[in-house]
Each structure stands twice: as C-alpha cells, then as structure tokens.
C-alpha cells in the first residue's frame, strides 16, 4: 500500500511523520538534529530513500545532512559554500552597499533525474549546486552576478534565495525567487538568469511599483503537467503567470487579505491552488484569529475558505513560505506547519483537516514524499 513521509524542519530540529495511504494514523519520529535550526528537508524524486537536510545554528554555522535510507540514518556531507570570484555588494537595509556574506541554506531542491545533483538556495542570495552527492558545492554564479543584483536588498528575513522550481518537461528551465528581489528564470540549467517580474506591482513598498527587481516574492508553485503556469504568493498579492514567468497578473480576487507566505497547487488538479492568508505585513497572524486555508478551483480570483478541523478562534500563528506541500495521492493530501508548532494534514484536498502533531518547535518547512 502506498504511503507518505512528511519531512518537517523546525527551529529546534527535524521530525518525520509517516502514514499509509489512508493518512489517518501517523507515526512521529524526532527530533533529529535536536537543537539545530532545520530550514529545509527534501527527498529525491528519483530515489525517495535519499533525503537532504539543511542544518544550521548561529553558533556553529551550516551543515548539510544526507540520508540514504529514508531518514533512518544521516551523514554530514560538504558544507563549504564559497561565492565564486569577487563579490560586488548588494544594497543593505539603509540603501548602502553591503558585501555578500553566506549565512545559511534556505532551500534544497534535488534534481528530477540525478540522485547526486541538488540545488541549494542560500542567504545572502545565491544558487549553489552539488553534482557529487553533496561532497562539494559550486556556486552557479550567473544568479548572483546578473546586472540587477547590485539593486537587491534583504527582506525582513534576510536576502535569501528561498524557492527553486525545475520544469519537469525541460530541466534546462528553472525558476528562482529571491526576497526582496523577485523571480528569476534560467533556460540553460542554472548557468545564466534573468529577472521575470513584468506585471508585478509592489506599492507602496517600492518607489517604482512595477520595477524590474525589488519585489518581495514569498513563494512560487507549479503543477508538473503545466509548467508554463506559475502561481506566486508575493508579500502582498497572489499572482499568476501563464507564460513561464514572462508576464504576471494578480489573481487575489476575493481573498480576505492577499498577504501570506506559502502557495501550492493540487497534484491532481492544476487549477486548484491553496494559500494561507495572513492579516498583513505588520500582523503576521491569520485574520480574526481564525486559521483558514483558501482554495481556488479555477486558478485564482475565486477563493473559498477551508476551515473544517482548523482552529477558528484565538489562533495567532503564521505559516512560513516553505511550510506547505502536497502529496501525489488521490485525493490529494495537503500539509502545512505553523510557527506555533502544529502540523495539519488534509487527506481530502483540503475539505477537512486534522492536526498530525500539535506541539513541535516553530515549523520552518514541510515537505512530503509519496511512497510506493
């Protein structure tokens, strides 16, 4: 029988939640790497027994862990992330030039075709790649050295490359998102990049609201069967592109607020999209203290609240950008984690929810593997 393995990164370690295909009864293991910040874990789509984890603390820096047995055992691999060549400055919060400095790995994106290849999005924003199973990491400097990079500035969470999407129909085509710079596209497997932010509007956050770069893109989502269609949760605004990022248009529609962090697409329905509205950039909690996932079945603009099983009073948690994911079962399972340490799951496309665990450390990321 098929099953799922949910990989949860938290402020104080990692947890692995497993269930069979019914997704009703869960086993919880962890904490792994207790006491460390685990920004992200993700399994290889080629070999689900291979899982990667980004482990860091402010004290002892960055490590990358790799499991080859589905998370039972782990080994530290290479952890040197050296920018290639001279690093020209980016903008600091006050507008002054600031040198590029490595802080941590935010996101690990395993290759769709090679178990030894993984992409890493880091802070300060840059893209790295390993081709030898994590033993060494090389910067794909085309991201950081593009002409717009000197105008990038950190968001509140730092200047981070937090989202990496790979087109499954053409692995040469990739998308990366940087806060606060925008979306970038590569058509040569990460060698060179260009901004693709036309149509985004950030007002009043940017003096030039439709600027080429400077947009605080929070997260991107793509359905593998329709890779030209991208969905975006921006700082404010939910946006959609139908042409591989060349142009964007807003699809916030009737959402109660269009601020938020994660966005996902149902694995079986390319027009079914999920977001978690958050009150505002000043109040990072759900409107009215009611935790609601919103679902659009028509690719945006028309949204319905999903509340069954979610707290509808006195709830003031946040859901971070990498903390929501979907499995590939039918009906599609959806999972998200909160800064309050809850991980919720839905086994029916979002119609109803149950807490899988309630009292973890603040959740930084949630990924799921669909197992044969």
């Amino acid at each position, binding site marked *: 029988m098929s099953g799922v393995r949910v990989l949860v990164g938290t402020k104080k370690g990692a947890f692995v939640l497993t269930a069979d295909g019914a997704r009703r009864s869960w086993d919880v293991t962890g904490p792994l790497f207790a*006491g*460390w910040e685990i920004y992200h874990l993700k399994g290889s789509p080629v070999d689900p027994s291979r899982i990667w984890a980004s482990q860091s*603390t*402010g*004290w*002892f*820096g*960055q*490590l990358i862990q790799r499991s080859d047995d589905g998370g039972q055992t782990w080994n*530290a691999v290479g*952890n*040197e*992330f*050296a920018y290639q060549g001279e690093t020209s400055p980016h903008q600091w919060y006050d507008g002054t030039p600031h040198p590029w400095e490595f802080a941590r790995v935010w996101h690990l994106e395993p290759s769709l075709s090679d178990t030894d290849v993984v992409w890493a999005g880091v802070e300060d924003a840059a893209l790295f790649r390993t081709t030898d199973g994590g033993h060494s990491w090389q910067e794909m400097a085309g991201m950081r050295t593009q002409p717009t990079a000197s105008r990038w500035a950190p968001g509140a969470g730092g200047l981070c490359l937090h989202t990496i999407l790979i087109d499954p129909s053409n692995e040469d085509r990739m998308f990366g998102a940087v806060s606060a710079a925008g979306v970038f596209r590569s058509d040569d497997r990460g060698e060179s990049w260009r901004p693709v932010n036309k149509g985004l509007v950030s007002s009043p956050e940017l003096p030039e609201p439709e600027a080429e770069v400077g947009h605080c893109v929070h997260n991107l989502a793509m359905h593998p069967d329709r890779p030209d269609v991208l969905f975006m949760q921006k700082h404010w605004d939910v946006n959609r592109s139908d042409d591989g990022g060349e142009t964007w248009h807003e699809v916030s529609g009737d959402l109660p607020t269009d601020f938020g962090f994660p966005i996902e697409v149902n694995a079986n329905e390319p027009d079914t999209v999920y977001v978690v509205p958050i009150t505002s950039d000043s109040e990072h909690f759900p409107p009215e203290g009611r935790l609601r996932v919103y679902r659009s079945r028509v690719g945006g603009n028309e949204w319905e609240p999903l509340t069954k099983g979610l707290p509808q009073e006195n709830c003031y948690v946040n859901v971070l950008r990498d903390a929501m994911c979907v499995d590939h079962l039918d009906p599609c399972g959806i999972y998200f984690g909160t800064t309050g340490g809850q991980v919720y799951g839905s086994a029916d496309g979002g119609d109803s929810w149950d807490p899988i665990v309630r009292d973890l450390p603040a959740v930084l990321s949630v990924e799921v593997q669909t197992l044969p």
Partner: protein
Amino acid sequence: MIRVQLPYHLRNLAGTGSEVELEVEGPVTQRSILDELERAYPVLRGTIRGHGTADRRPFVRFFACQEDLSHDDPDAELPAEVAAGKEPFMVIGAMSGG
C-alpha cells in the same frame, strides 16, 4: 596529548565525549590544535572557524586556564598547562539566547 573540550552540539556531530585528545606536532597554538581537530573530525570543518578564512565564528569562544583566549593571535603559543595536557583547551558556544 592535548585535551580539547567540545560543546554539546559539536561533540554530537563528532560522535565523541565532551573531551577529545589530540597529538599536536610543533608549537601548541589555537591554529595547530584546531587544524588537528578538524583533521581528526572532518565534520567539524566550518563549525568552529569559517571555511577559507579560518576566522573564529562570532559565537564561538576559546577558553583555557580560566582565561578567555578568543581574541588572541591564533598563532600565539597557548599556556604550558595546555601544551602539557594538564588543562584542556575549551571550545565554547557563546552564552546567548536561542
């Protein structure tokens, strides 16, 4: 033998107890101890000192003989008690919340 005490997270990474013993050739300095420590336990590379720069990470401290040596020249010889193995060279996670 040089005695090196490691903080909780680093001893877990290295799979050791709280203290390890190292043979250090030549002058006993912060650099020579840490070079040998990283050679013996490669997983610790980058966790105490930065890759490339070999600079002490900001929230790591070095203590020995009731003194904070964190700001000393990494090539300065350490106290004779450390070189003789009577006192440990202590790698400390700085006291700060989190």
